[in-house]
């Protein structure tokens, strides 16, 4: 979800830059306690891993790319403070060394992906870990859902930035943009959730000492100390509610400026533009993929269905997540099964 230069106005970019620096300083302060001999290389690996998975990206909106974000993975393995630093490092290096994401949009990108994404991922994850059984499947499922939540919410962070500082008034409402972003990112979130869940469960099984979210305890053993359970459960539930409800609320918001003629022209032209874009180098396939999402949402926008599309995306995500969780769980009919249904229904 890199934003390039020139999409968000100068003052808003600057404001976000200031906020990002402020929060990063906070993270640095907290990270100093965490960044010991063991965590330093892990932080580097997490950053490298995120860097690698972010290479697979495609356009979702003009000047904005879609790809895995990695905030929840980072939060699970190195904790929220170092995790936010890891993702920030990825973004800084990408901007400076790989010319990916605008240098002037660094504050925006860090706010969305590093700060918002990691924070949401961590809250949801820790909340779910309190509810789910401490088995490999439980941890994997928690990471899976946390990833989806973090990706979708980070995408909404962009929408907020666009509302505040978009350089141009659009015919499509913010609700639709929000739904588009949520829908696309719910799908991205599923992919990211699977990758993150596999990675974290593998590490948790062999080297539980490396999984920050488990606080060094082995699986199947209750964690000691920490913040009261209630806080995290409530936090996780609140985020899930925002996730499910927020998108639809935004989407049903204002179909302002909707005009049948404009939209007709828009779909046709959008197609034209996509064909134009697909000739660009080797990215053709990815590009068409991104483009078609956009076109789809454009068409459906006519009858206000975009909001629904976003909501369906989120719901679908959870459904698929549940299905995977159930199959995995049935396969390893393991410890503490009676806890699970409670957790799942609460999550819904």
């Amino acid at each position, binding site marked *: 979800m890199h934003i390039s230069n020139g999409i968000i106005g100068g003052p808003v970019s600057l404001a976000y830059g200031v906020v990002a620096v402020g929060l990063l300083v906070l993270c640095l302060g907290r990270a100093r306690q965490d960044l010991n001999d063991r965590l330093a290389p892990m932080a580097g690996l997490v950053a490298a891993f995120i*860097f690698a998975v972010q290479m697979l990206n495609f356009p979702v909106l003009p000047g904005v790319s879609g790809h895995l974000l990695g905030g929840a993975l980072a939060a699970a393995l190195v904790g929220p403070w170092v995790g936010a630093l890891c993702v920030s490092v990825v973004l800084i290096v990408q901007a400076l060394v790989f010319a990916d994401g605008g240098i002037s949009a660094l504050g925006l990108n860090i706010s969305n992906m590093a700060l918002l994404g990691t924070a949401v991922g961590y809250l949801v994850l820790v909340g779910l870990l309190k509810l789910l059984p401490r088995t490999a499947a439980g941890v994997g499922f928690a990471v899976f859902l946390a990833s989806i939540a973090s990706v979708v919410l980070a995408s909404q962070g962009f929408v907020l930035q666009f509302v505040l500082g978009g350089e*141009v008034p659009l*015919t499509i409402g913010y609700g639709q943009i929000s739904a588009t972003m949520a829908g696309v990112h719910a799908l991205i979130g599923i992919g990211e959730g699977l990758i993150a869940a596999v990675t974290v469960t593998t590490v948790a099984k062999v080297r539980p000492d490396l999984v920050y979210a488990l606080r060094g305890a082995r699986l199947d053993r209750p964690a000691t100390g920490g913040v009261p359970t209630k806080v995290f459960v409530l936090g996780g539930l609140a985020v899930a509610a925002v996730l499910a409800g927020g998108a639809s609320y935004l989407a049903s918001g204002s179909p302002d400026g909707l005009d049948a003629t404009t939209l007709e022209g828009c779909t046709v032209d959008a197609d034209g533009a996509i064909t134009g874009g697909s000739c660009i180098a080797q990215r053709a396939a990815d590009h068409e993929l991104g483009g078609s999402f956009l076109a789809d949402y454009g068409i459906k926008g006519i009858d206000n269905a975009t909001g629904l599309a976003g909501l369906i995306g989120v719901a679908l995500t959870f459904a698929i997540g549940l299905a995977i969780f159930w199959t995995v769980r049935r396969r390893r009919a393991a410890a503490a099964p009676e806890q699970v249904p409670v957790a799942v229904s609460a999550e819904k």
Partner: protein
Amino acid sequence: MGAGHTHPMYVHGHSPVHHLAPEVKIAASVLFTIVVVATPRELLPAFGAYAVIIAVLAVLARIPVGWLARRSLIELPFVATAVLLPFFAAGPRTDVLGLSVAVEGLWAGWNILVKGTLGVLIALLLSGTTPARDVLVGLDRLRCPQAITQIALFMLRYLDVLADEARRMRIARLSRLDDPRFLWQVRGFASGLGTLFLRAFERGERVFLAMRSRGYTGRLPAALHEGTVATAGQWAVGAAVPALAVVVLLTDRLLV
């Protein structure tokens, strides 16, 4: 294996731009980009002038045009989707080539396209003339917090380790009669990914400990890159670029 061999974006060379200290180049790039972004989108000649500055720098750095073009293509699709904006924007409309487009949208699309592209080119000039590790050295000298440079250093090293471990695992599979397409079968892929992560971590951890046992304290010893510290002259040269951009911006402002 080791770190710092990742120079995917580095064009080897010995130009004056290559020899400029990394901290100077970073500061100049960031400032230049900010000037570009701060330029009102209507000042067309200013953008032309920026493009000329970039072209001159590219020639000085002896960066092949083909390389710049190929590299910027990677990022360009995201910027180029800006051509969609004229169709989505609200407000008064006009006809271009028989299509009805929004004036405001045209400007907005142009804004993203030109600032995005110039930004990409500036960043490419930086990364094409500065090895990744030197960028970190530069950040370090610009007083970037050590936690960040250290994570970044490990990140670059781990990119190598990941690639290297992935290569080893691939060869191991191949030589024992695996069809690489198997890699994409979900189970194999999933367990492969997890194992890759763990292996890479443990390799990297051992390398880290080996570094520690040779006295590493969180920052590369300055003696290893003493030769590249910026002189006052270099700072002056570096400052000239954004300064020139500001001059362009101001004169254009006054003229238009």
